[in-house]
């Protein structure tokens, strides 16, 4: 009897999880489907879900009109660059906060996180002016720096949580065993922290890839990543839904594939420290 109740509850939970999952996934599914429709079918009323003439015309049109490769390359360089630069700064920072904390460490961490609560548009104007002054407008370097700064608090927090989980006694055992700072980092800490660093890297890459506000406002043609590529297909008249969908699909495909293959790593990274 108890087992029947448990099974029933399980089935309900599974159904609910699927429903929520599908609800979240539906806009993406709809975008992908629309990308295979003609422009007329894309705006047909009532909308058609599957029963339409599948076409690759939008993809070929989009590839003809825009240099997808260049946008893709910019996205990879900007997201990758900001992630690597972020890690270079965040690893030592999180390191010292976790292993040699001061009285103000908690305050600094909270302050760093609080900067994420500021609406980005609030600092757009000064940053725009600084970018003009430094000649960083529409440059990949400029975007790498801005996106790195935007995500730095999250990277530091995630790494800090990971490093905190490494017991201090292990480092002391290392000291007793004759490991110097270099040996400790190389043989003990890095191998222990690799899963944490990897999932932080992954999450940051995804955040930087999807970032639209700064990439749209600080780039024009040269440094524009895939977010700008999508935006270039949205027109005020809204007549290019199919092409817009094709562009969107092409922009999200790489990150979707990356996310799919690394979902286990991502989930464990995001829930790290929550459950011991």
């Amino acid at each position, binding site marked *: 009897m108890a087992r029947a109740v448990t099974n029933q509850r399980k089935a309900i939970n599974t159904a609910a999880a699927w429903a929520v999952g599908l609800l979240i996934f539906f806009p993406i599914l709809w975008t992908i489907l629309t990308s295979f429709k003609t422009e007329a079918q894309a705006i047909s009323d009532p909308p058609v879900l599957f029963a339409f003439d599948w076409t690759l015309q939008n993809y070929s049109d989009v590839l003809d009109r825009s240099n997808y490769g260049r946008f893709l390359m910019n996205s990879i360089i900007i997201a990758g660059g900001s992630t690597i630069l972020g890690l270079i700064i965040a690893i030592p920072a999180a390191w010292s906060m976790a292993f040699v904390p001061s009285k103000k460490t908690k305050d600094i961490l909270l302050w760093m996180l609080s900067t994420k609560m500021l609406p980005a548009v609030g600092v757009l104007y000064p940053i725009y002016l600084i970018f003009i002054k430094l000649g960083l407008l529409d440059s990949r370097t400029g975007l790498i720096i801005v996106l790195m700064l935007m995500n730095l608090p999250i990277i530091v927090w995630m790494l800090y949580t990971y490093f905190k989980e490494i*017991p201090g006694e292990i480092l002391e055992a290392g000291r007793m065993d004759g490991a110097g700072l270099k040996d400790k980092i190389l043989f003990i800490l890095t191998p222990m922290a690799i899963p944490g660093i990897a999932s932080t890297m992954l999450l940051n890459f995804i955040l930087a890839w999807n970032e639209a506000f700064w990439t749209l406002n600080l780039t024009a043609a040269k440094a524009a990543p895939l977010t700008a590529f999508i935006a270039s297909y949205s027109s005020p008249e809204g007549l290019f839904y199919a092409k817009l969908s094709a562009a969107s699909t092409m922009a999200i495909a790489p990150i979707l594939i990356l996310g799919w293959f690394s979902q286990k790593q991502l989930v464990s990274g995001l829930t790290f420290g929550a459950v011991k």
Partner: protein
Amino acid sequence: MGQIQLNQVTKSFGDVNVIPPLDLTIHEGEFTVFVGPSGCGKSTLLRLIAGLEDITSGQIDIDGQDATNLPPAKRGLAMVFQSYALYPHMSVRKNIAFPMKMAGMDEAEQTRRIDAAAKALNLTDYLDRRPGQLSGGQRQRVAIGRAIVREPSAFLFDEPLSNLDAALRVGMRLEISEMHKRLKTTMIYVTHDQVEAMTMADKIVVLQAGVIEQVGSPLELYREPRNKFVAGFIGSPKMNLIEGSEAAKHNAHTIGIRPEHLDVSTTEGQWQGTVGVAEHLGSDTFIHIHGIEGCDPLTVRAGGEVAVKHGDTVYLTPQMQHLHKFGADGLRIS
């Protein structure tokens, strides 16, 4: 090799002075146990010897050499931690090899020492496993193996058995004692468990608030505790400390009598009381007795077959030759 001498060693954390000036000599080959309640500074003292904490003032000599400013790895000591502190990403073999690798020892010698340690500690079948795949007892053996291969002049153990269950603890206790007999290396062992201290030590150092209350062999401490604190701390069940008129009869502020030094009778005796709880252990019975002035409850250790129960009236007679007397300052009156 393995003599450790502490001269006027102090340790402060900020304004808090955890170890006031302290002198202690640990002789070569001795099994010394630091024992005391939580927060008494015993682990801090061990960490000062290990070099994991810097001393505030004083000097630590190891084998006659000033080691005060030497880094931990250069002191020739090996430490076994309470949490085992194994490297989780390395196999047992690599864990044990790590200190030798850091010392740049050649591979053949490393393998020889690993195999010898694994054999001595029953780890041969587990050398390629990771710590996560081992039981608590096995992990502790790996930690000991990692210490043994360094062939240190002294072993430091920081509450190494506290994470193990009771049965395993007794087994490991014996193994460590046997290891000491075999290796004859100096060992310093920190514990809050006075049973571990009594059973393992050649010499016990009883600490309270960073101060050494008494140093001596287990039986010295048992027979002649220097003060009330040591009297109450060493021995299980604890010594009964009786104050008031009963103590005054013996010209003392407090008298102490161990539970095993009280004779119980249901008919006659010096003190009369009522049985509260009788704990039957089979070999012994611990009887907690109420109604005796100056010490409530009073604990008696009687034979396993003693038939007393809650509410019974019993009479107790202390064995006078085992009576301890303490003055108002808590010190023993000889």
